[in-house]
């Protein structure tokens, strides 16, 4: 355990990995500043470029970029009242009023400090729980792993936004897409319809880009114009430092909201959007001056920012330990694992513990560096929001085309990506959960493998193993919680 931790963390201090992280942090901040582009889009765009990297470089690169996305969005939320990502939506309630009162620097200092410390808290919780969870996951065999996949798909469908029926359908559609190509056991080509290019299945990268990146570009092209016409306000450094000190003064609020964010992050399928509002609501209820919230209360900035980054550590725990993504972005991270040849699931902590520590370390270090960078260059980078969509959209589209191509050097993947983007766009417009779809897609092959092994080993009674029954019970509870609660309420009445 200790050797793995030392090995994993030492990777982060190699010169090339430091450079990769710095580059990823810069791009992550820029992506976060551009509204509509989130950490999910960043991961989808970055993954193709990790093909040629070894797992340590790739995971440090991806985590570094993803961890700081919210930081960029914080700057726009405070200075120009536009949340860069959904996780910044609560920050602007008090951040922008503070900016209007001439306290932009304080708001930015408080937000970025809370963000860094919240991320640190989440990373530490993750680090503490990894050795605890590891022995537990060794008890998971094929049946348990199969039901874990089903639970993951069910949770992300039930707990996420929108209609559960639509989300479940999306997850099943993703599973179907994963069945395209040669069947592992029988080598029979399924759903290829005679196209030899589909014999190896649909690649993860074109699918991720089609579902997450292209629909956002369609939206950007449709809306046009520049993202922001509001001129940002000045934020002197001394005010920023004053904001940092305010976080230390509110240390107990910081700890509580970081913990809230981490706990919410652990629940699979729940995203940052929920954690920030839970933290904001908690801060308001427990504040001595709740009436100040919404008018420039610094607690209204500290609470959501600490929760949104604390959530990342929590979301990584089920992702790394069980292969169940803690959030939509973690679903894409699992896709990155497959691209790198790493099998997600309970065995990850057994076979790749050093990589788990690399991820934890990258999360903590990137949060701190990202926050520091935002303080110094964030106010300049915000000019990116003045760039018109006419410039951004075609460039990003071409980057996604390159990204789809780079994996297998296959032009077919580029065309497939654009064809699938129609599905991605339709799902976005009609309220079908794209994270559910993508999770079904990347876990489909695993699910089928566990299913076949389970049936061969245990016969059709494979669901009767004790841990499987517990997982089935938890899945049932999670999916039908509201209905059960209503039924019990009626019974009591």
């Amino acid at each position, binding site marked *: 355990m200790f050797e793995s931790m030392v090995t994993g963390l030492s990777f982060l201090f190699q010169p090339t990995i430091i450079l990769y992280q710095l580059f990823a942090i810069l791009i992550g901040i820029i992506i976060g500043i551009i509204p509509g582009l989130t950490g999910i889009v960043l991961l989808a765009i970055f993954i193709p470029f990790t093909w*040629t990297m070894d797992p340590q470089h790739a995971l440090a690169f991806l985590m570094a970029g993803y961890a700081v996305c919210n930081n960029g969005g914080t700057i726009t939320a405070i200075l120009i009242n536009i949340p860069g990502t959904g996780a910044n939506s609560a920050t602007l309630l008090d951040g922008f009023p503070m900016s209007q009162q001439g306290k932009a620097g304080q708001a930015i200092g408080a937000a970025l400090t809370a963000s860094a410390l919240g991320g640190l808290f989440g990373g530490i919780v993750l680090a503490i729980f990894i050795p605890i969870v590891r022995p537990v996951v060794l008890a998971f065999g094929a049946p348990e792993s199969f039901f874990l996949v089903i639970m993951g798909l069910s949770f992300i469908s039930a707990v996420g936004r929108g*209609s559960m*029926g*639509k989300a*479940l*359908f999306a997850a*099943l*559609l993703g*599973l*179907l897409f994963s*069945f395209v190509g040669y*069947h592992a*056991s*029988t080598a*029979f080509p*399924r*759903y290829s319809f005679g196209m030899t290019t589909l014999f190896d299945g649909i690649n993860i990268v074109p699918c991720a880009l089609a579902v997450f990146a*292209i629909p956002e570009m*369609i939206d950007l*092209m*449709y809306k*046009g114009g520049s993202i922001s016409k509001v001129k940002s306000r000045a934020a002197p450094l001394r005010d920023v430092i004053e904001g940092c000190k305010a976080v230390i003064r509110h240390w107990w609020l910081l700890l509580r909201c970081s913990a809230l964010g981490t706990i919410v992050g652990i629940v699979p399928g729940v995203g940052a959007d929920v954690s920030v509002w839970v933290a904001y609501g908690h801060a308001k209820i427990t504040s001595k001056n709740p009436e100040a919230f919404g008018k420039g209360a610094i607690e209204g900035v500290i609470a959501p920012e600490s929760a949104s980054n604390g959530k990342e550590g929590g979301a990584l725990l089920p992702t790394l330990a069980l292969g169940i993504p803690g959030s939509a972005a973690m679903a894409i991270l699992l896709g990155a694992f497959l691209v790198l040849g790493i099998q997600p699931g309970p065995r990850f902590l057994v076979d790749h513990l050093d990589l788990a520590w690399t991820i934890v370390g990258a999360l903590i270090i990137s949060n701190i560096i990202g926050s520091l960078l935002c303080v110094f260059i964030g106010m300049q980078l915000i000019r990116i929001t003045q760039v*018109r969509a*006419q*410039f951004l*959209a*075609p*460039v990003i*589209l*071409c980057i996604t*085309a*390159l990204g789809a*191509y*780079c994996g297998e*050097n296959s*032009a077919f993947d*580029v*065309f497939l990506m*654009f064809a699938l*983007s129609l599905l991605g766009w*339709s799902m976005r*417009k*009609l309220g*079908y959960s794209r994270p559910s779809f993508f999770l079904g897609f990347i876990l489909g092959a695993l*699910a*089928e493998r566990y*299913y*076949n092994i389970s*049936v061969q080993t245990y016969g059709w009674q494979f669901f009767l193993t004790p841990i499987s029954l517990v997982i089935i019970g938890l899945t049932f509870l999670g999916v039908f919680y509201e209905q059960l609660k209503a039924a019990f309420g009626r019974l009591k009445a």
Partner: protein
Amino acid sequence: MRKSQLAFIVIFLCILAMLFYVTLDYPWRARNLPLLVIAVAMLILVRELLKEISRGKGAVAADANISLPERGQTEAESPLKYAVVFGWLSGLVLLIWIFGFLIAFPVYIFAYIKMNGEKWIWAFVVSVSFLIVVYFVFGVLLEIPLYGGLLFQ
């Protein structure tokens, strides 16, 4: 929007029915899980279809005296504008297919920026800069053989 929802559901019901039929010919182990997934997906879609139909009846009764925006759209959305966007996407695909990356990218970026009201100098600078970055980063540094299209492959 409701028309779009119904169309999506009906189209996918047809696709799933076709897939179900095709899957029946697969070997037993290869068709096991796909058949289960397709069956459950179809059940969910049928449920969504019934929900949409019953929701639609209620909405029509309630809004009978109010003039609604054209069906399938909200007031803010324009099908023509979306058609233009998808036209641009299709244009990129065609350019890549015929001419390959190194010609398609700068031509597309230049055309998009220029035809969306920007000055030609900016269109030229951005498209040429992008071409240079792509060529040197992907072609030279990473040594990725960039797709040359039907004409130059």
